[in-house]
């Protein structure tokens, strides 16, 4: 399982793996926002938490179909299915690798990009924290969606359609925490609920996703 995790991390870091693409996408989204909404600094600061969360979420979405897609095509997943490793563990390893190569860099880059949108550094720290706590849920839910749409040809659009509604609670609590922090209010409640979603997803989704993988590989 650990080897699978390391292999997935390695594959995505090396060229052609798409590592960094999510980051660049995130940067581009943030760059486009002032073009669309005007360069007014105070207005940007107001919408910055939501925009950054939304950008991170979309960037996360981009690489989801790679989680299982390539392994499914070249037959690696079939080999994994015949190995003693249960599909639940395969799912956890792959979701963890996805988080490490997508969620974590996004969370770390977010405060820096926040500065572009006139988000002050203190709030930026909360943004980073909320993304650190929230992106595991995004990776877990996304990997679940990817395991569902495994056998679907050109399932990318379908995958977004299935996954985005599932992202709603995380987005609400995450952006809420940053917004509250920006207004100088207590934000810990939202952060706790955000972490609860991540932990709940980690507890429940392996079984759902394991079932989906078994169904797709039989």
């Amino acid at each position, binding site marked *: 399982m650990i080897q699978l995790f390391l292999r997935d991390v390695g594959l995505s870091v090396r060229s052609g793996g798409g590592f960094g693409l999510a980051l660049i996408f995130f940067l581009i989204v943030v760059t486009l926002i002032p073009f669309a909404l005007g360069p007014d600094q105070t207005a940007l600061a107001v919408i910055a938490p939501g925009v950054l969360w939304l950008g991170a979420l979309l960037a996360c979405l981009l690489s989801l179909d790679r989680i299982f897609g390539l392994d499914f095509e070249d037959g690696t997943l079939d080999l994994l299915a015949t190995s003693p490793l249960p599909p639940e563990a395969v799912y956890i390893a792959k979701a963890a690798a996805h988080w490490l190569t997508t969620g974590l860099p996004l969370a770390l880059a977010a405060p820096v990009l926040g500065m572009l949108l006139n988000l002050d550094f203190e709030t930026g720290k909360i943004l980073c924290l909320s993304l650190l706590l929230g992106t595991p849920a995004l990776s877990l839910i996304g990997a679940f969606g990817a395991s*569902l*749409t495994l*056998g679907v040809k050109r399932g990318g659009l379908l995958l977004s359609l*299935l996954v985005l*509604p599932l992202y709603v609670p995380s987005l*609400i609590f995450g952006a*809420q925490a940053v917004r509250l922090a920006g207004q100088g209010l207590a934000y810990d409640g939202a952060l706790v*609920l955000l972490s609860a979603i991540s932990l709940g997803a980690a507890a*429940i989704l392996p079984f759902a996703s394991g079932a989906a993988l078994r*169904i797709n590989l039989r």
Partner: protein
Amino acid sequence: MNNRSIAPTFWDRFWRLANPKVFMGWSGRALPWVAAAAGLFLCSGLIWGYFFTPDDIRQGSTVKIIYLHVPAALMAINGYLLMFVGALVWLIRRQHVSVLAAKAAAPVGMVMTLIALATGAIWGQPMWGTYWVWDPRLTSFLILFLFYVGYIALWAAIEDEDTAADLTSVLAIVGAVFAMLSRYAVFFWNQGLHQGTTVTMADGAQQDNISNVFFQPLLLSMMGFGLLFLTLLLIGTRTEVRSRRLKVLQARERME
């Protein structure tokens, strides 16, 4: 196996109803009656509601949208609940009829959600001065609609019937959990403009509950919508069973 008595228990008989052949038998016999009852309840509820109730003091005649809005919203939620149960029964007991019922319930539930959203918007314009606000109740219905769309899209995307049944069932169950979660998250996110539930069966004495003048035709209309849902569900499920049979026949024909 030795300890088990041979006489069928209640549950044996119950699950027997879900045998496709048995199901086609009883549902075919029940369908005209259910459809007739749906028509009767809907007509009487709506005609009573529209022509024989007074206008509300504050809302005027717009209050009559309630006879479409509330029942549709009720069936939209119950439709998802039914999908959840159907999916669970399929995954546990492999009853084909249950997953086909879940499949048939999805489009009906989606349309009910749309009706609730549309009538709500039409009602909201004169009452709140806007067609749409990001109110928790409205928002959670929009999210419910997205869940329906996702479920239907996944059914449509997978070719193998049993794989599709399994995967959509997993999605329906996870979706039900996240739909509940979204509902609470959305309430946390924004305070609402939409009123709370005023149609409570148990406690009619509550102060701002709906008046009996409106409640009685509404109850009829709700039962009518429930029966309408059941009618469409039976038709949909029977169609699915038939289309499965047709596919088997076609496959058999190709073999010969």
